[in-house]
Every structure is written in C-alpha cells, then in structure tokens.
C-alpha cells in the first residue's frame, strides 16, 4: 500500500479530518480559535484517560513483577479500578493545614498540571498532528518543563511541614541536576537534525534504508544519548529509582504529604502526565516519533506508532520501578554530575565527529569506540572509588 | 499594533520599580530581586528596539537580550552565593545591620 492510497490517508489523518469536519460547521472567523480549543480539548481528554489506564496497568505490572496478581476486583480484570480511585479522591475531604499558606498551597498543583499540559502542545503525535508546529519547539518544551520545579517548590514550602519542605528541596535539586543532562542529551539530536522544531526532527528520521528506519537511536551517539535521556527522564519525573523526593520510608510522601482529595489527585495526574510527555519527547527525539519501525509497516497509521512507542516507554518506566531500589541523595548527585554529565559532554563531541566524518563504516567504528572506552573507563574508575556500583551494607549479614 | 513608546514606558516603570525595591528593602535577597527586575526591564527595551528597529534581520537587539539573560544568570548565581556567605558570617541578611567594615 502506498502513501497516496486513500484508505491509508484516511486512517492516518482521521483525527485531522475529523477536526476539519467539525470546524466546517462554524463561521470562518471562529475556525482558528475553535480549532485550537478542539485540539486542546482532545489533549486534555486523551492523556488523563491514558493516565487512568496506566495507573491500573502499572499496579498490575508491578504485581506480576513481584509474583502477585495485582488489582483484579473492580470490573473485569480490575480495569474499572481507576474509576473507583477517581471517585474516592474526588469525594474525599480537602484538608488544608491550619498554618499552611492557603493561596500558594492551592496554586501549586494547578501550576504543575498546567505547565505539564503545555508541554504536549509541541509534541507531534502523528503526521500533521502537532498542536503547534513551533520553530523553537524543543526550547518551548524545556521552558515548560522547568516551570514544574517551581510548582514542586510551592507545594513543599506552602505546606509548612518539614517533610514536605525536605522533599521539595530534594526534588528541586534533583530536577535541576538532571535537567542539564536532559538538555545536553537532546542537543545531540538538534545538532543532527539541524532544527529545534520537533516535526522537523521526526521528518529527519523518517527515512528507510534496507527496510530499516533511520532513527537516531540506531547510531552510537543516539544510543548513548537515549540511555542518558532515559536516565534523566526517570529522575526528572521523580520515578523510582530516583524517587527520593517522595521516599515514603523517610519523608512520608515528600512534597505532597499535606495534600488530600482532589489536589492530591492533581499531583498524581501531573506526575503521570509528565511521564507521558517526557516519554513522548524521547520517542520524538530518538525513536523516530510517529514513523513506523519497518518500511513494510508504514501502512499502519502514524498516530498508532506514536502511542505504541509511548506506552512501550511507560512499560520500561514500570519495569525499572519494579526492579531497582532507591538511590541515596549523595549517590544521586554524584551520578548526575560526575558520571552522566561528562558522558553527555563527550557525546556532544562524538556527535560532532559523526557529523564531520561523513558516510561510511569509519565513523561507526570511531564513535562507538570512543563511547565504549569512555563508558567502561569511567565506570571502572567510579566503581573502584566506590562512588557508584553495588552497595555494601556494613551491619547486614 | 502597539506603538514602541508603550513598551518603553512599561520597561521604564519596571526599571523604576526594581530600583525602588533595590534601594528600599532591607533584605539582601530582595535587593538582588530588584536588580533582576531592572535587568529584565532593560531586556524588554532591547527586544522592543530590535522589533521596531530598522534592521531586525541583523538580530542585534535580540542577541543583546540573549547575552544579557546569560550574564544575569551568572550575576544571580554569584550574588546569591555572596548573600549566603554573608549570612553565614554575620548571621543576618539585613543590610541595615551590616554597617561595620570589620568582620
């Protein structure tokens, strides 16, 4: 089936066509604003729905990883669990501590969710399916991503609670540290694609040779960049093993200790939406966005590929959460500044070499060799000095 | 379309507010906040002049603003580091209380 086939075009562009059809009922003057509102409404509906599904799949997946069954009571296979959870959190009493700063306490979850939602605006979720195709899309995404740090700080500070404040400070320190890694690992992609526009980045990867796609993850620098991006993304979304801001064994629940009911649900939503958007960005940057994994699969609609890659990344998040124990604060910081950041800078250098060596096997050899030698050498050094690596417990055994 | 003069007036107002904050507040951090506001007002001027200037394609004002943002970040980092060090030394950030040259 070719790209020009009408059936393919209809299935691929179904959401775009639906939007056009809905807008055709409106007078021309209103169409621009109504179109934006419609797209925003779609994002605001789809991702929370995905969030609801993810919560139950996460709990089931974690259960299976620990040889348990997971939730299976509410509805068939426990699939209606999120509805029960939603009703519970919406009907719960909303408690604001007496000494809390009520206005800031209220604003924090709102700012968080709004900032996270803004990030979705530039993600291309399919062919012609980005809400705004901004020239500085990646910069916009990171600008919105940093705004969540402030929301986390507001939440922790306004609660007037030691645990909240400690959790917030940890979260902010961690997010700033890994933000650097996130940015620097994405810069390699920008160097190659030559654009900050996410649609252009996807188009730059949407080529095939021998039936295989030209995704950036299939290059030495892209693979290293993706691994570092994944590490930074996990830390950025405060997911296990980097979940010390809300480490329940030491900080009760971190910055959302004093939140209950609907506001807690908003925080929960914000956390998962951040996970979706950061996975979406990772997909766009390294995994070819909406492009199909093989040439013979290009007949499948582009949005299907985007969302499958997104869910695959979410699965990896859950898998990591089920496997790795939580880091200590000093290990976290050492890892970010003394290992991942130097590797990131080296990767930028390698990407430059890749660009200027031109086509051929030479650049594969040189770039892979530099990266592997650096990784092995630095890893060996860090492990020898005991900065990272297997933990030893002085009083155990 | 808004005329250039209104942007310049807003920038002047922000600059004056920042200056007033820097001159009247006791807390050293608040003084830094005032200075940040003044820098931002200057940035607004630069961007506005770039937008309405004769050669926007040369990007002079925009570049000036971008460099100014970078310099302001450095200034904030060093300034706040100094404030923290002063607090450690004098146990206060009140500028009125810091009136001795001997430590």
């Amino acid at each position: 089936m070719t790209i020009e086939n009408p059936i393919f075009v209809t299935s691929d562009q179904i959401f775009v066509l639906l939007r056009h059809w809905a807008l055709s009922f409106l007078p021309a003057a209103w169409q621009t604003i109504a179109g934006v509102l419609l797209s925003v409404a779609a994002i605001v509906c789809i991702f929370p729905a995905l969030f609801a599904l993810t919560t139950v799949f996460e709990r089931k997946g974690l259960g299976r990883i620990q040889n348990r069954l997971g939730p299976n009571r509410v509805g068939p296979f426990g699939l209606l669990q999120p509805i029960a959870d939603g009703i519970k959190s919406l009907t719960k009493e909303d408690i604001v501590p007496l000494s809390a700063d009520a206005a800031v306490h209220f604003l924090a979850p709102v700012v968080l969710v709004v900032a996270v939602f803004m990030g979705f605006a530039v993600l291309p979720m399919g062919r012609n399916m980005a809400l705004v195709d901004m020239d500085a899309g990646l910069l916009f995404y990171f600008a919105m991503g940093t705004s969540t740090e402030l929301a986390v700080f507001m939440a922790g500070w306004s609660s007037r609670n030691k645990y909240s404040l400690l959790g917030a400070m940890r979260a902010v320190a961690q997010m700033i540290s890994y933000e650097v890694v996130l940015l620097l690992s994405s810069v390699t992609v920008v160097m190659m694609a030559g654009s900050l526009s996410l649609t252009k980045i996807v188009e730059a990867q949407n080529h095939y040779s021998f039936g295989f796609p030209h995704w950036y993850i299939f290059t030495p620098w892209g693979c290293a960049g993706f691994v570092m991006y994944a590490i930074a993304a996990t830390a950025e979304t405060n997911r296990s093993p980097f979940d010390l801001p809300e480490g329940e064994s030491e900080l009760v629940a971190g910055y959302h200790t004093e939140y209950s009911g609907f506001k807690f649900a908003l925080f929960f939503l914000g956390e998962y939406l951040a996970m979706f958007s950061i996975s979406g960005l990772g997909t766009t940057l390294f995994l070819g966005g909406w492009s199909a994994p093989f040439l013979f699969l290009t007949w499948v609609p582009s949005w299907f590929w985007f969302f499958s890659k997104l869910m695959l990344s979410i699965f990896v998040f859950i898998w990591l959460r089920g496997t790795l124990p939580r880091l200590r604060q000093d290990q976290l910081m050492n890892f970010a500044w003394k290992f991942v950041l130097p590797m990131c800078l080296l990767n930028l250098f390698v990407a430059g070499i890749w660009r200027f060596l031109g086509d051929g096997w030479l650049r594969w050899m040189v770039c892979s060799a530099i990266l592997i030698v650096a990784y092995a050498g630095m890893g060996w050094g860090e492990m020898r000095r005991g900065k990272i690596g297997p933990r030893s417990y002085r009083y155990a055994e | 379309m808004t005329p250039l003069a209104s942007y310049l007036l807003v920038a002047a107002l922000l600059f004056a507010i920042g200056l007033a904050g820097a001159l009247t507040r006791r807390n050293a951090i608040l003084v830094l906040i005032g200075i940040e506001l003044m820098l931002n007002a200057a940035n607004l001027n630069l961007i506005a002049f770039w937008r309405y200037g004769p050669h926007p394609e040369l990007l002079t004002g925009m570049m000036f603003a971008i460099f100014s943002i970078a310099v302001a970040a450095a200034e904030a980092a060093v300034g706040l580091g100094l404030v923290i060090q002063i607090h450690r030394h004098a146990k206060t950030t009140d500028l009125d209380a810091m009136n001795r040259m001997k430590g």
Partner: protein
Amino acid sequence: MSFVFYMLAALSVTGALAAVLLKNTVHCALALTVAFAGLALLFLDLDAQFAGFAQILVYIGAVAILVVFAILLTKGSETPKDGVFSRTWLVGLVIAAGVFAVLGWAVIGSIRVLPQEKAVPTVTVLQIGNALVGRYVLPLEIVAVLLTAAMVGAVIVAMHEKEGEK
C-alpha cells in the same frame, strides 16, 4: 492586539510591584516569577520567540529557583520585626521616582520620532544560531568563559570553609 499588550503589561507590573512590596520573602520570589512570566509573554508579543523561551528557561527555571533556595538557606522567610523597608526608604523612593520621571519624559518627548508600526520580522532559530556562531561568536565565547568563571566563583564563595583551614 493592544488588549493583549495591556494585559501582559499589567501582569508584569503587578508582579514586579508585589515582588518589592510583599512582606514574606518567599512570596516576593514567587511574585518575581509572575513578573518574569509576564515579561516572557511580552517578548512573545514582540515576536521574539527564542528570547521569550530563553527567558522562561533561565529566569523561571533557574534564577527564581536559585532565589528561593537562597531565601531558605538564609532563613529569610521569617518577616523581621522592625519592618521590611530600610531606614532610608524615602530617599530610595525619591530616587526611583526621579529615574522614572526622567525615563518617562524622554520616551514621551520622543514619541513623534518613535516608530508606530512595523512588519513582523521573520526570524528562525536557524538564523539566530548562525548569527551566534558567525557574527557574534566572540561575545558567545566570552559569555561561555564568564559563565564558567561565575560558576566556579559561586561554588567557591558559597562553599563551607573547612575547620582546619582557618
């Protein structure tokens, strides 16, 4: 489009006023963030997309966070008993008002020669990048050195002195 401008101007001026007037230092820092956001939106209103996003990234993402960190590290969030304004606040206010008067007079006075309207300039990020590593490469390098020096300096200034070294 003027309406958008007035809204944004009001937002940034309110934020700035709150930042210098509020009693609680953390509230001041949060109000400062509002002013920064208003300014970033003003940049976008001026079609300077790159500068606007850089403003959000640097000011809201880094400077504001730095300020709140400094406030918490200096226990500055408690309101002092003897007022938040300096003893010489009147002098400061007069100076600021004088500066505003001069600036405002200069702007109002030259309102005839200032351009009223201008076609929207199309500037892509690619152009900015080319300018940065072309015409403005020397300033870029100097800023890089400055940032490194500032980082090292800030770390050294804020670092705890070791007991033995005193």
